[in-house]
């Protein structure tokens, strides 16, 4: 099993994602430099990590979209390969057209780093099968532009196809406005594509997957991926 962690200029959760895949999960993992635009088919899963690709200048993900590796990620995803984009990775996948909608500035207009609670909306994906439906988990967010928005038609589509994987919720699982940290429409925290092989999420599961950090709620994401790859 081989993981690839994409490194854009300005990616800064690349080491964290590498650490999880390589040392916590124990799988072969490599960095993929954005200029080395070669075929990704040798990988079983591609992680597009968080950070500030191109400094988030212009708008997050807008410049990374034109980076040579992005075409390869698209090819890989369209061929059915597993791609997970976390935080800035989610923003890039949206800009690249692999996921619908847009991530706008948080409604507080401030960067927010804190733990939030997520309710599992769809556990029938390669990224979430280790959780139970409706389960509430604690995962941190750290972003300035995580306010998910999509037009009504797109939202309808997302809901109809069960593409909403996580929503921001209270600790009791209520998806209320009070539990919404950034203004995302319908409290959306993470979505997948129709084929279920591409996931984008604003929260950082790699930051809560080890006992020493006091929270292992995020580990299920990586376990789900490994389980899926082992079974397929």
């Amino acid at each position: 099993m081989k993981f690839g962690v994409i490194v854009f200029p300005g990616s800064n959760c690349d080491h964290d994602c590498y650490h999880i895949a390589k040392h916590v999960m124990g799988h072969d993992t490599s960095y993929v430099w954005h200029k080395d635009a070669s075929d990704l088919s040798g990988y079983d899963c591609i992680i597009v990590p968080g950070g500030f690709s191109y400094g988030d200048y212009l708008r997050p993900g807008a410049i990374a979209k034109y980076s040579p590796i992005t075409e390869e990620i698209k090819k890989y995803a369209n061929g059915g390969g597993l791609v997970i984009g976390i935080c800035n990775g989610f923003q890039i996948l949206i800009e690249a057209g692999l996921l619908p909608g847009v991530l706008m500035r948080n409604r507080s207009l401030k960067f927010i780093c804190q733990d939030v609670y997520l309710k599992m909306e769809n556990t029938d994906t390669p990224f979430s099968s280790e959780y139970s439906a409706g389960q509430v988990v604690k995962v941190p967010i750290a972003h300035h532009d995580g306010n998910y928005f999509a037009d009504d038609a797109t939202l309808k589509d997302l809901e109809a196809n069960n593409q909403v994987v996580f929503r921001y919720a209270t600790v009791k699982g209520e998806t209320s406005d009070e539990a919404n940290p950034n203004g995302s429409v319908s409290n959306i925290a993470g979505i997948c594509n129709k084929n279920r092989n591409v996931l984008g999420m604003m929260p950082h599961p790699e930051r809560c997957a080890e006992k020493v950090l006091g929270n292992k709620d995020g580990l299920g994401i990586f376990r789900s991926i490994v389980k899926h790859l082992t079974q397929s």
Partner: protein
Amino acid sequence: MKAKVYVTLKSGILDPQGKAVQHSLETIGYNAAMDVRQGKLFEVTLADGLSLDEAKKQVTEMAEKLLANPVMENFTVEVE
């Protein structure tokens, strides 16, 4: 009446965003883009009954006090 306020960085002030955008334009083939500087455009809708002079004066004050950061930015005002 509407006013437009263009806010631009003073010359000589570094524009990291403009620099990154220019570099990206270059990598996707637009070699003619020699330099990019980013600014802001504000469209202000004004109350009826203001004279043109009064409108200009007020919008200029708005720009000085709030819309532009005089430490780093210049601005121009258009009223029509």
